[in-house]
């Protein structure tokens, strides 16, 4: 038997197929304008990839902001619980999960069974989220995926505004005053790092720390976070699928 976990986020939709031991198929597509459509499409994609028949599926669990739009799922679970379960599945030693997605950032504290002890989520504001980095990269006229590469080894410029709108004009005036792209890129990642650090500190860091969500692909930010927190921050190629994995695990087990 199999279970399917679908995580429809604000930017990307992810799905995995789980056979009770392993992830046997995974896929990611842009969410686009319709979370319902991308969720359905993704379901077809992963089940055919894994070559599973519909009646071999015991449960489909949806998570992420788009979960409410999915009509074919058996259960909805919040991304917070799913990230906790997903992290525990990947490595049962994980106690802190830092998840930075397109719209929100959260920190989750887990016990040894992968249950959530505590969590914090950013409020309405976009500071410190993927959206923040995207807007800033746009101002720098680079792709958001290039930030790490460009910023590596540079002396970070100070970005003092917390607010995305103000930080954008700060970046523009820094560029006008001749600051290097490299320095600004590093400065932006530092600013996300310190914002995340505050969030993590409120919950309290507990080793092992895992970094998930789209922004975790940013290796320089992960390095900054490790330094600031004083413990190694791990990530994995499955990071972006954490929510979907957690959903599939929940669907399989309970």
């Amino acid at each position: 038997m199999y279970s399917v976990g679908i995580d429809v986020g604000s930017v990307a939709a992810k799905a995995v197929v789980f056979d009770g031991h392993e992830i046997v198929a995974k896929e990611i597509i842009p969410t686009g304008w319709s979370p319902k459509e991308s969720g359905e499409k993704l379901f077809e994609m992963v089940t055919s990839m894994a070559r599973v028949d519909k009646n071999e599926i015991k449960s489909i669990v949806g998570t992420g902001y788009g979960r409410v739009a999915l009509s074919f799922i058996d259960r909805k679970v919040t991304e917070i619980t799913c990230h906790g379960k997903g992290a525990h599945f990947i490595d049962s030693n994980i106690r802190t999960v830092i998840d930075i997605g397109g719209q929100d950032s959260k920190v989750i504290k887990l016990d040894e069974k992968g249950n959530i002890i505590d969590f914090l989520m950013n409020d309405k504001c976009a500071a410190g989220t993927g959206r923040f980095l995207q807007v800033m990269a746009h101002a720098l006229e680079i792709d958001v995926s290039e930030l790490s590469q460009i910023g590596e080894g540079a002396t970070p410029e100070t970005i003092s505004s917390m607010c995305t709108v103000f930080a954008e004009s700060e970046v523009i005036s820094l560029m006008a005053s001749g600051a290097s792209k490299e320095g600004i890129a590093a400065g932006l990642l530092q600013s996300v790092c310190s914002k995340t650090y505050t969030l993590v500190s409120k919950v309290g860091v507990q080793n092992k720390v895992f970094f998930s969500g789209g922004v975790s692909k940013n290796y320089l930010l992960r390095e900054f976070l490790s330094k600031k927190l004083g413990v190694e921050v791990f990530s994995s190629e499955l990071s972006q699928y954490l929510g979907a994995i957690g959903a599939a695990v929940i669907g399989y087990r309970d």
Partner: protein
Amino acid sequence: MRPEIMAEVEGLRGVNSVKIKEASEAGKKVVGMYCVFSPQEIAMAADAITVSLCGTIQAPIEEAEKELPRNLCPLIKSSYGFAITDKCPYFYFSDVLLAETTCDGKKKMYELMSKLKPMHIMNLPQTANAENSLELWKKEMIYFKEFLEKQFGVEITDDKLRAAIKLLNRERKAMKRLHQLNAHKPAPLSGMDMMLAQWLKGFNVDKEAGIELIERLTKEVEERVEKGIYAFDENAPRILLTGCPIGSGSEKVLRILEESGASVVALENCTGYKGLDVLVDEDKDPITALAEKYLSTPCSCMTNNNGRLDLIERLAKEYEVDGIVDLTWQACHTYNIESFTVKNFAKDVLNLPFLQIETDYSDSDVGQIKVRVEAFLEGIK
């Protein structure tokens, strides 16, 4: 299914706005009040009607923001908005206003509001435990009494005070009994209905009729318990809601909690149980007894405010709650800072899951709050 009498309770707002007009036109005096620290008994002993004016609705905030900073607690902005737009019949018919020096935001807003109507301000001590606090607060009671005597040309006798104390104690006891019904597992009354019943009593023009209505509601709920009719099923996580005041229009967080499957069994906030807990001593000199009762209010404006932790602990145990949710209105420093203390207390002493939500009256963050609330409830199950 909700109790039938709730429809009558909900109708109170409309009924009372007519009653207050009639009473005012018939020459009755009305005292508008803003806070749980307001000694209603003194106004009643002056033969006046008391109404609660705390703003709990988003609509007048836009107007208020023309004069007040945007980054201010929505309760203060809403209260002020109602005052300057004349949209609240209770404000309109208030002959005088009573304000207290509680949080900084309210204090400074009252300075602006005092230009609209005669206002009396009571100087609330910053702490309830200092040696001179009670003396000071007693004097403030006397000043308020003298203010009303002068304004309304009446004499407030000890006998009248005693009668008012008795009446309001009866009201508190009736409300308390209603509240305590939810200690039953599962809870027979939803948190929403509980909040409405308590909030609407603040508009009650006819106290006796109000008490009678609450007693009838209690009776109906008791009968439902006997028949095994409850507001939620027995697996619903039982939540204690604490923090800033809420009312109709600012019930967002309470509503999200219950829509997500929780049963809010206890409302610790000042629009809930906080003001009901302690009765006024009926045997003491009335002014002293009133000063003692009101000074014991465990509000975050006081430093320290350990009484709040005691009350939370008591309610958490009596109501067998599964988690604590602390609501903070945006820019409310006192409750926001105190939330850290409450969180540690919930986790370390009570061993209960805790969630703080900071928000305002708007609907812009409903989706966000839902995620947090649902995840919190998933963690409890």
